[in-house]
């Protein structure tokens, strides 16, 4: 199945970014890529080729796609946006104090 493959590639790409990159903003971008991979996978798996889970006024279609994963994904997107904003805020403050956003050049964290 194609979406399993796409999920694997996207997720590992995000994991690679989080592990290998030293720039903190790139790490946040990697986290977001992993997040989006999961959302994509949940939506793609729940899609069975039926119509969207919204009733039409005149014709009441009987078969819908599963609405529960879509609601969960909406929740996840909101949480992801909040955490991303908070992480970027921490990076802004860190840049003000340490004058760098490179995780290798941060001093005073080792001892």
């Amino acid at each position, binding site marked *: 199945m194609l979406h399993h493959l796409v999920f*694997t590639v996207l997720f590992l790409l995000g994991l690679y970014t989080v592990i290998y990159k030293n720039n903190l903003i790139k790490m946040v971008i990697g986290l977001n890529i992993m997040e989006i991979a999961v959302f994509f996978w949940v939506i793609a798996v729940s899609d069975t080729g039926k119509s969207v*889970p919204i009733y039409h006024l005149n014709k009441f279609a009987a078969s819908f796609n599963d609405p529960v994963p*879509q609601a969960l994904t909406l929740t996840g997107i*909101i949480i992801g946006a909040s955490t991303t904003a908070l992480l*970027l*805020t921490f990076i802004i403050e860190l840049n003000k104090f340490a004058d760098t956003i490179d995780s290798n050049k941060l001093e005073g964290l080792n001892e």
Partner: protein
Amino acid sequence: MKKFLVGLLFIGLAFLLLINFAELPEEKLITFSLSDYYIGFGLEQTGALNLVTAILYDYRGFDSLGESTVIFAAVSGIVLILSRKMLPVSSHGLSFIVKRTLGILTPFIALFSLYVITHGHLTPGGGFQGGVILAAISIIFSIVYGSAFDYKRYSPELKTTFETGGALVFIIIGGLGILFDGFFLDNLDFLTHSPGTLISAGSIPLINIGIGFKVGAGLAIVFYSMIQKTFGEEF
């Protein structure tokens, strides 16, 4: 050597994931799942045509309350960290043509966001989605007209009022559910008109309006705090 080992680890992880996916069952194992219940009884129990909205604001309304609390906490943290001074620090904005064009376009963006918010139970959309469009207006003001214009039109106090007000609307409607039906966040059925009209689905549109203003104001606050601190020394 270390890179090689980590690459091997990644390939192994990919292999394991794909094996796991190959084991997934093709057909449904449960004959009557929760989703079938929502699809079967969602319209007659909530009156909302959009089943995703019905789940988010009726069946799982308490989860949405927690979700908006997460946004509230994130915005509070960002404001606490970033804004030591709430002064308007402005750029000059973009060129005259961009300003005029967005002056014409902005009312329509506001109209669209209000449409998405208020029709959340009928069409795709809802409070969260419309709120993000609402926040886009404030971001456009900050970028195109300069953040002093944004400060004058929508001051941080006004945004804070909208944010807390939206959260309060949500909690008050939940409390009214206790008062009338006996359960927190129960659907206020006496507001329900026939399904498919704008005033239907009980308390879902009201919660949508509260959430929409809350999310819009929250994201506008986040953007305003970041831009103020980041460009504070240059202008």
